[in-house]
């Protein structure tokens, strides 16, 4: 008799593909939010699989803070070329120049919060009614309550007290004019699942995720990459260390971890033994205990 059991990765993949197809079927102008990070790279991989041999119907939308790792942009452009996907880039710098937002000042200044405005402006400009993101529920407590189809009002806001219940796999994508959905096909994946899938599917990731030597400095317990965007405070010193990144945001707030894991298999081994959560390296979440929830309410990724 045939064995119909499925591994957890097969089940997660089937679920994510189902959700991506629901977006294609229910939304008129969906976009896929592409950050250059592993989750969004994995999403593009799943989007290709979901519609093959037809092309993925989702243009990629990248909100560029201007503070990217150069490796991320190079990787992005190569992937887009391979996929022959449509890439739309909107710049936080343009939002600043137009006076939509004011740049933060001081040594801990980051454009991480500002990009919410650029994102919402871009969605309005593109009249996008669904924005697919790579967020996972295991990343952070506030995300644990997110829906697959997360409704946003006309101002892009999330109301955690008034979410639509999601029953079975029936996703209610109906909405009013000007409203949109954030859709999270990877909701049920954990960081380990992502890496196991990357290994299984031999998905290429930016070199930043693997051990390399880099000039870094220590701030609030995190290792930050030395870059022109982050001026050093008195007493901070640049050191060259063997590190890798577990998440890739912009250079101002993405912390590195000391690691010698140079391959996917080594990263998985490190993760299994790891005792620090993925976002523990993100300075942006540590601003307050409810930092993520506050940003999500306003329309953050």
């Amino acid at each position, binding site marked *: 008799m045939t064995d119909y059991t499925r591994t*957890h990765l097969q089940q997660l993949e089937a679920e994510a593909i189902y959700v991506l197809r629901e977006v294609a079927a229910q939304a008129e102008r969906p976009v896929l939010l592409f950050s250059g990070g592993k989750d969004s790279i994995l999403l593009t991989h799943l989007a290709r699989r*979901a519609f093959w*041999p037809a092309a993925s119907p989702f243009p990629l939308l990248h909100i560029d803070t201007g503070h990217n790792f150069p490796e991320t942009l190079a990787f992005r452009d190569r992937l887009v070329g391979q996929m022959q996907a449509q890439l739309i880039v909107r710049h936080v710098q343009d939002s600043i120049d137009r006076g939509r937002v004011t740049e933060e000042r001081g040594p801990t200044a980051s454009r991480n919060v500002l990009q919410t405005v650029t994102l919402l402006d871009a969605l309005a400009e593109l009249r996008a009614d669904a924005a697919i993101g790579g967020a996972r529920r295991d990343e952070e407590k506030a995300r644990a309550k997110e829906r697959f189809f997360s409704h946003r009002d006309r101002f892009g806001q999330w109301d955690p007290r008034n979410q639509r219940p999601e029953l*079975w796999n029936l996703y209610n994508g109906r909405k009013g004019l000007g409203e949109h959905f954030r859709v999270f096909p990877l909701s049920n994946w954990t960081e*380990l699942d992502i890496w196991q899938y990357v290994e299984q599917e031999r998905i290429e990731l930016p070199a930043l995720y693997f051990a390399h030597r880099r000039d870094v400095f220590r701030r609030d317990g995190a290792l930050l990459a030395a870059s022109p965007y982050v001026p050093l405070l008195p007493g901070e010193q640049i050191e060259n260390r063997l590190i890798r990144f577990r998440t890739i945001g912009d250079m101002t707030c993405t912390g590195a971890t000391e690691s010698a894991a140079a391959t996917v298999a080594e990263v998985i081994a490190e993760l299994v033994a790891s005792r620090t959560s993925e976002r523990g390296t993100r300075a942006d979440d540590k601003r307050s205990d409810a930092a993520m929830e506050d940003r999500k309410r306003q329309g953050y990724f």
Partner: protein
Amino acid sequence: MSGDLLRFTTAGSVDDGKSTLIGRLLLDCRAILEDQMAAVEAASRGRGDPYLDLALFTDGLRAEREQGITIDVAYRYFATPRRKFIIADTPGHIQYTRNMVTGASTADLAVILIDAMRGVLTQSKRHGFIASLLGIPHIVVAINKMDLVGYREEVFAALAAEYRAFASKLAIPDLTFIPLSALRGDNVVAKSQHTPWYDGPTLLHHLEHVHVGAGRNLVDFRFPVQLAVRGHPDFRGYAGQVASGTITPGEEILALPSGQTSRVSEIIAPAGPAAEAAAGDSVILRLADELDISRGDMIVRRHNVPQMADRLECTLCWLSETPLNRQADYIVQHTTRQTRGRIASLNYRIDVDTLHREPAETLRLNEIGRATLATGGPLAFDPYALNRATGGFILIDPISHATVAAGMIRRAGTVANFSEKLATVAADAEAVALQPPRPHSRNVSWEGATITQTARAARNGHAAAVLWFTGLSGSGKSTIARLLEQRLFALGVQTFRLDGDNVRHGLNGDLGFSAADRQENIRRVAEVAKLAFEHGAIVLCSFISPFRRDRAFARSLIPAGCFFEIHVRCDAATCAARDPKGLYARAQRGEIPEFTGVSAPYEAPDAAEIVLDSETQPAEALVAELLAKLRAWDVLRTDD
């Protein structure tokens, strides 16, 4: 780690220690990491708690941390070398039913917490009821806080016995009791030293070993189509997630609601062409033939088809602050199909605490009731108890777009009486237009006291209809009807023919030809035609039926759109010249009194559905014309 996946939900009242239990599971399975631990330790100290508050690991949002309770369904993840786990953590207060129904809808297992100090509460029973309602195959009753009752076996045994007695009234295939202390970790991950009398598994051991496939239907292949995929010009496939069952290339399939058949030519899985697809797999199916299939249709195996109905008896759980409005239309989302629907009747509300039925005018937030849903078109479904994927639906408010209710189909609904049937004529007409399928399967079992029109149409492969032939004697009514019946019979149609001459030998042998008797003749015939119509037949009635009033009566018995008046028109002189039975000659000799067209009037129809010119056209041509009309009227399938 190539284990499978278990989705479970946790249910407990405010102080049962549910969040603590989850925190304990996560902690002891090393799913809580150093920085998360540091944050919780700091928060515990900040609140002045003397111990590490495990609940802080799971209580997510700021509002609920401030209130000290959770407010929505939160999902947690952990894994052991055997299995990956997804916990749907649902809070236990006023919105409880709504949240638990949501969390339970995707769960394979439910953990229900009972506080050993407080015993089996009303809420504990409510949790069991909802879990059974949502068809969760495994239920674990975790009797918590055993440390506070001295780990006494008799406390555990008494609570287990009490709960088991209650649960015997519910449909719960697998019920397990575990004595534990979430706070101290007894029997959660590690076996407790304090319960030597307990030889069952720890909670984690049970979660790791419970059979996940129990809730998975691998028999009935159901494939709701999400969208059609067109790659290159000669590629066409249908994308979807297999709701249940399995399929392999080469198997014969049936598309619903069209009833078209074909074979699976290829299965494309995420990694490429596949030899089979099973429940849960997201695939693209290619078919051997070009069929017209789109989102919302369902592909099934040819000889194992779901039921089709536009009236559904269901259990409804109301999820919205705005109560059920029985005058309003809702959007029914069932599999990948959306259609309009309305609650045709609300039978009763179930008191979730006592399980008593009580009369209800509406359903409010968190209330559960039994209702009949009428939909704008037939849905292909299985009873929820047999198939969660094709038996569940949600109702959406068309104005606010909110998801207002969850529904579980019990069986096809019945049409209670004729006036109610008239009210659903529009839906019936749509059902006919959708050309129901023609399954010939032992697996099709229609439930309920009455077999619905839709169900009969689905099996017969055609709609029921009454074709009423009227015209002068000798105009050719019977000839045409007989010929048409032969053609229909050859197409596999369920036919029933009533002819004036025949009924007068038996059923109406007591009637003459007076106006009153002619009226009674037609009344009886019309009633018989109605019975046959209700049994799904295409009924052919050939009667002179000279009076408009009598034909109108016959029409009134049949739902609009299903009665077709056919005027077989032929000049009286031509009929008299044909005179196949010699009746005109006898009438003209005065041997037959009140002979229509000679000594009695014929009131020609002024709004017949079709007029057949039998004066100039041969019967064969008229039958061909009628067959074309039957297809145009969607009584017959276009490929018949």
